């Protein structure tokens, strides 16, 4: 069995401007695994997602990220995407004038070009498009609308999962995809993820709350605090956090930091 890690993050330090946000983070993700990253607000969860996907404005000052055996930090954002990294945005962006179908066709064709394939045939594209729409319960009329324009919060999040289904990434990072969702939308999102899960791909589910993890059952749960992963466990860790809140993590962390200093 091929157990070469899909993603390996070693001692990652990253800052925005002068402010260090990620402070020595280690993480290994193997194919077939679903990881949850939990933690209070402002601990660097979204920053981690942005650094992995190559968003401008973040400076990596130390450490490395190895993805499929390559140095990920050498790649441009679109190359990372073409290599199979997908980010489900916490705040999906509206792009007026660009229709969903045009956008997705352009994305799929870019992916195919990267693999040395011809552009997808319109008929084939539409068939696939409809299939995936069905999968996440998205009405067909939405395909003619501009990307995310005028979508409700739930529609935007579903739209992220829909795009993920079309692009079939190897590593999907879902950044607080559950925030602002009602229970039906949450189920649709989780359903989508569960249908896409297989032995070759992996998910990094960033969430604040346990409730999404009732529907997407993680293999490994991490707790992030102060720019690091401070605790790792199985799905029961998420339940424990739900019951006890994050305060005890903070206490534990502060204590261990003090001990280290003494």
């Amino acid at each position, binding site marked *: 069995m091929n157990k070469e890690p899909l993603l390996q993050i070693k001692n990652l330090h990253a800052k925005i401007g002068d402010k260090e946000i990620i402070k020595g983070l280690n993480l290994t993700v193997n194919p077939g695994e679903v990881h949850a990253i939990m933690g209070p607000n402002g601990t660097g969860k979204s920053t981690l997602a942005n650094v992995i996907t190559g968003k401008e404005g973040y400076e990596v000052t130390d450490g490395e990220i190895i993805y499929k055996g390559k140095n990920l930090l050498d790649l441009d954002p679109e190359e990372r995407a*073409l290599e199979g990294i997908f980010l489900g945005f916490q705040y999906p962006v509206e792009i007026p004038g*660009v229709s969903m179908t045009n956008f997705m066709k*352009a994305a799929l064709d870019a992916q195919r070009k990267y693999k040395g394939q011809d552009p997808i045939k319109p008929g084939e594209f539409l068939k696939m498009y409809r299939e995936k729409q069905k999968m996440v319960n998205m009405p067909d009329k939405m395909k003619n609308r501009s990307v995310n324009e005028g979508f409700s919060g739930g529609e935007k999040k579903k739209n992220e999962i829909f795009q993920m289904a079309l692009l079939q990434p190897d590593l999907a990072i879902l950044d607080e995809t559950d925030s602002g969702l009602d229970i039906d939308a949450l189920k649709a999102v989780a359903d989508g993820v569960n249908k896409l899960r297989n032995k070759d791909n992996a998910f990094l589910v960033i969430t604040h709350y346990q409730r999404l993890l009732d529907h997407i059952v993680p293999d490994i749960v991490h707790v992030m605090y102060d720019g690091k992963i401070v605790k790792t466990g199985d799905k029961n860790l998420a339940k424990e956090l739900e019951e006890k809140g994050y305060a005890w993590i903070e206490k534990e962390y502060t204590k261990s930091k003090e001990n280290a200093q003494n």
Partner: protein
Amino acid sequence: MLGLRKNTQNLKKMPKTRKLLEQHIIDFFENNFSKQIKDEPGFVKKIRVEAFELFKEKGFPTLKDEKWRKTNLSRFVDSYYHPVLNTLIKENIFEDACIVPDLKTKNIYLVNGHYVGKSLEILENGVILGSLKEAFIKYPDLVKKYFHQLIKNSTNPIDYLNTALFTDGFFLYIPEGIEDFNLQISQKLDAPIDALVNTRNLIILEKDAKINIIQCDDSNEHRSHFATFDSEVFVDKNAELNWYKYQNINNLSALFSNSFSQVAENARFYTNFFELNGKLLRNEQFSDIIGKEVEVDHYGLYLVDKTQQFDNVIYIAHSSEGSYSNQKFKGILDDNGKGFFNGQILVKKDAQQTNAYQKNDNILLTDKAKISSQPFLEIYADDVSCSHGSTTGQLDNEALFYIMQRGISKRDAQLLQLYAFAGELIEAIKLPELIEPTKDLIKKRLNGELDVCESCILQCAVPTE
């Protein structure tokens, strides 16, 4: 005050320092032009002389003139441009004539201010089409009723110049009730010298007529040309004129296209201009609404880069009540490109229940690109609905990242957004056959692939599958 004014008058009488081109034009008119126009009817000659005197007095616009503050003409008016009196038409110049796929059009060609081909004809449906100079002779009464009736009110020296020196242009008369007529005009600047080109046109739509005009402005030679293209447009009751224009001239030349129109009760006048290339393109449109239930739409898209400058100056006068007008102009400016938008709405005292709107949106792609956007609303009626707005911004970085995160390159992500921005004006096209060619042209232009073509730009734009 009086003393001051006297001084100014004295100053005016003093010999003025002439720009090279001004002096050249004055000498040419005084010494050579009279024999060129000896066959013209007296009323035209008289109009020319009056316009010439005004040009002589006022000279070219300068940066001190209100509507020319952002438009420096010195690179042109300090040079020589030569009037083209006879154009030798290259035999095969229109071999690859403009063709809009799947659209039946009557095609005419204007080269360096001259009308090419059969000079004046009456078509089967009674439409009169041909050379304006020919129309002066064959239909003097008809022409006299309209010619110069609108431009005579202009105080723009470009119009004086055009009136004094136009060589020819087209005359189009659409009789009452004629519909389904599509005219395609190819204007070419194609001289082996730096040419001064003045073209004058007259368009008359009688009641209930409905036509489309598709115009391409092209240039072949890589010489600098100085061209004026003045049109007078009369749209009578219930008539409809839709005018699409594609401008793609070389990056050494200046083209001033001024149109003056009068729109009568229940008529529609729609223009949609795609300004693609040229050193200086300036489109001025003056539209006077003289009846109820009129709709006037002036749209335009300007794509400016390198050291180009494109100007749009729009003036819509609501002289009658209960009408609608809309101005929508969008620009993308790259490199050191410059743009100037001046949009004016005048609602006269009796023009109650007027709806008049104006919008100008711009994207600047560099720090050096500049846009000057000036809206003017002058409203003397109290029961009106008017609005204006202007925006200038950069591409949205959040959206760029979002698109790139889906595997699309930065360049393609930018193009996608720019194309989307331009999309509103493509959607405003009412003639379905023009949509695909226009889309293709804009994509090519945004991608830096559209250069001055060897043939008509619409031809170039035939989608390549």
